[in-house]
């Protein structure tokens, strides 16, 4: 495996930091920890071909790991409930200001599978007549009514493959 260069870490750090700040998110202010996580992301990109969460075991099959490509599908829920995402790359304002303590949080992945399946079923059973399908970005919740989702989410920059049919 080729080594991750410090320049690559620096570049991705700058990119993620400026994107986070312009969209109302914050990177962890513990720079050493944050850069280590970014290094982990880059290692995973070289290893698997995509930026899989450094704190989760990726399968190497992109279709099975889509939900854990950073930013993961669970980031916003975890930020709301615990003040940080699972790996702690992203933190809430309260953690940033020291009002809340940063810590290791429980894994949310797979927890809601059952709930989600029930919901998907009920949506399918309640077919509403719409002129266009509504697509939902699984990362940030952005909705749009179009024949297909946008190439890149205009809000959080997640790729097209992270969209699901909402209605």
């Amino acid at each position, binding site marked *: 495996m080729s080594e991750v260069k410090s320049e690559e870490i620096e570049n991705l750090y700058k990119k993620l930091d400026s994107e986070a700040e312009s969209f109302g998110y914050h990177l962890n202010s513990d720079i050493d*920890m944050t850069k*280590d*996580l970014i*290094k*982990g*992301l880059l*290692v*995973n990109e070289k290893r698997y071909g995509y930026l899989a969460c*450094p*704190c*989760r*075991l*990726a399968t190497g099959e992109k279709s099975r790991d889509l939900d854990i490509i950073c930013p993961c599908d669970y980031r916003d829920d975890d930020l709301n409930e615990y003040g940080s995402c699972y*790996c*702690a790359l992203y933190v809430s304002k309260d953690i940033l200001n020291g009002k809340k303590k940063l*810590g*290791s*949080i*429980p*894994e949310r*992945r*797979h927890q809601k599978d059952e709930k989600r399946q029930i919901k998907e079923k009920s949506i399918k059973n309640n077919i509403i007549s719409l002129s266009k399908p509504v697509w939902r970005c699984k990362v940030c919740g952005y909705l749009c009514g179009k024949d297909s989702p946008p190439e890149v989410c205009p809000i959080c920059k997640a790729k097209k493959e992270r969209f699901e049919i909402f209605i």
Partner: protein
Amino acid sequence: MKIEHVDGENRGKILLYALSTCGWCRKTKEFLSKLGVEYSYIYVDLVDDSEKDKVIKEVRKFNPRNSYPTIVINDKECIVGYNEDEIREVLGK
């Protein structure tokens, strides 16, 4: 499969399942070393594909969510996530 061993005070069989890229796993390793206990660790993401399923099955026995870090103590107790207080309590340190 590569199992790394760290020398220290014997507080039972401590096996840490970790990911080489994970920040909380790194902190857990550092904390165990700071406590000075003897332990072993496996970087599950670096395990050969031929053996990976076997290791994941072992982790799931103790932690069905297959999340990391997972510490297994004496093949029976398990600590999921980086939790200093819990580690101290279970290891009596």
